[in-house]
C-alpha cells in the first residue's frame, strides 16, 4: 500500500460539501416554502391571541377614568358577519385571549357541551379574494371605544401566528390560523405590517363590528346593573329602617312632649 502526502487536500472537503448540500435539499423538500400558505377552498380556525394598545389615547388622555389600562375585547368579521367575539380582558395594555372559553351559563342552560362549543374560534374558508377584518374595542362602563383594527386579505395570512403591526392606537394584533382541530405545538410566527401585502389599518369600525360594540356596552351595563342591585336593596332597607326610626321618634315626642 503506497503512502505519501495528500496532494489534493480539497478532496477531504468533498464529503462535507455533499452532506451540507444534501441537508439543504432535503430540508427544502421536507418543508416547502408554501406549506404554511392557506389553500383555496379549505376551512380554517382563526382566533385572536394578543393585542397591544398604545399607553395613552391620541389626545394624550388615559384610557379609563380611574387611570387603569383599557379593557380590551376583540372582534373578527368575515364576509360581513361577526364570526368571533372574544371575552373582555380587563385593565391590560397587552390583552391575551385563549381559544378555549367555557360558557358555564350555556352549558347549564343547554345541559351539554361538546369540544367544538367550548373553543371560541372563528371558522373561515380560504378564498383568493377573501378578506377578514379584525378589530379591538375598549369596553368601559357606559362607553365602548374602537381602539383599532386591520383589514387583512386571506392570501396574506399563513398557518401559525400572524403578527400585525400598526401605527395607530392599536400597536399590534396577533391573529392565529390553524387547520380545523389541528392545534400546532410550535406555531410559526409571521410578521405583517400595515400597508404591506394588502393589509390596511382601520381607524373606524366597519358596520358589521358596531353590533359587537353594542353588545359589549350592553354586557357592561347589565353587569353594572347586576352589581348595583344588592347595593340598591341595602339602600332600600336602610331607608325603610330610617323611616321606622323616625316614626317611632315622632311618636315618642308626641307622647311625652306633646302632652
Amino acid at each position, binding site marked *: 500500500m503506497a503512502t505519501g502526502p495528500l496532494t489534493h487536500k480539497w478532496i477531504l472537503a468533498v*464529503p462535507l460539501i455533499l452532506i451540507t448540500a*444534501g441537508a439543504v435539499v432535503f430540508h427544502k423538500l421536507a418543508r416547502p416554502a408554501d406549506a404554511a400558505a392557506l389553500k383555496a377552498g379549505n376551512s380554517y380556525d382563526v382566533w385572536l391571541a394578543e393585542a397591544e394598545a398604545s399607553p395613552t389615547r391620541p389626545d394624550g388622555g388615559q384610557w379609563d377614568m380611574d387611570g387603569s389600562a383599557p379593557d380590551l375585547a376583540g372582534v373578527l368579521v368575515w364576509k360581513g358577519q361577526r364570526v368571533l367575539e372574544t371575552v373582555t380582558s380587563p385593565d391590560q395594555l397587552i390583552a391575551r385571549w385563549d381559544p378555549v372559553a367555557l360558557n358555564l351559563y350555556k352549558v347549564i342552560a343547554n345541559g351539554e357541551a361538546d369540544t367544538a362549543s367550548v373553543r371560541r374560534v372563528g371558522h373561515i374558508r380560504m378564498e383568493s379574494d377573501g378578506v377578514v377584518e379584525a378589530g379591538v374595542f375598549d369596553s368601559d362602563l357606559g362607553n365602548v371605544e374602537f381602539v383599532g383594527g386591520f383589514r387583512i386579505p386571506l392570501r396574506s395570512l399563513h398557518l401559525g401566528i400572524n403578527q400585525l403591526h400598526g401605527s395607530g392606537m392599536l400597536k399590534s394584533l396577533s391573529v392565529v390560523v390553524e387547520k380545523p382541530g389541528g392545534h400546532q405545538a410550535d406555531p410559526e410566527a409571521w410578521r405583517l405590517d400595515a400597508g404591506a401585502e394588502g393589509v390596511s389599518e382601520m381607524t373606524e369600525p366597519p358596520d358589521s363590528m358596531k353590533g359587537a360594540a353594542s353588545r359589549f356596552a350592553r354586557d357592561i351595563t347589565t353587569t353594572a346593573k347586576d352589581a348595583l342591585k344588592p347595593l340598591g336593596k341595602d339602600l332600600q332597607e336602610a331607608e325603610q329602617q330610617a323611616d321606622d326610626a323616625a316614626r317611632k321618634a315622632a311618636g315618642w315626642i308626641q307622647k311625652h312632649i306633646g302632652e
Partner: protein
Amino acid sequence: MRRRRLLATCLTTVACLCFSAGMVLPMFKMQAAAGHWTPLVKLFAPGEFDERTFTLPGGILTLWSGGEVILACILGTISLILPVAKFTVLWWECLAPEHPPTRVVVFFRIVSRYSMVEVLLIALTVLLVKGMPGGSHISVGAGTYAFTASVILGLAAGEVTRRAL
C-alpha cells in the same frame, strides 16, 4: 481494481446523501394519547397532544439544553462527527492515489461496526412507547431509514475499498 474503486466512490456518495437526509428528516413521530379521556384532556391542554417529531440533531440539542451534557457529547460524537470523519477517510481511499495512514483506516473500520447503535436505540424507544398506557403511538420516520441506509452503505464502501486495496 479501478472498477471497485468507482463502486466504492458511488457507495460513499450515496451514503453521504443518505446521512444528510437522516440528519434533516424526522427519526420518529410520537402521538400522545390518554385513552378514553383524550378529548377532554385535549380540550384544556391541546398542545400536549400534538404530534411531535424528533430529528437526531434536535435530540442532541434537547439533551444538551436539558443538562445531559455528557450524553449529548457522546451521542454527537458517535452520530455526527465520526460518520463525517469516516466518509472523509473513505473518499480519501477512493480518490487519492496516496492513501491515508493505516492506523486511521483501521480505526474507522473498527468504529463503523458500532454505527448501528443509534438505530438500536430508536427501535428500543419505539418498543417502550408502544407499551405505554393511553394509546400513545410512535412511528419510525424517514430519517431513521435514511440514517440506517447511510450506515450500511458506509460499511459496504469500506469493505469494497479494503478488497480494492
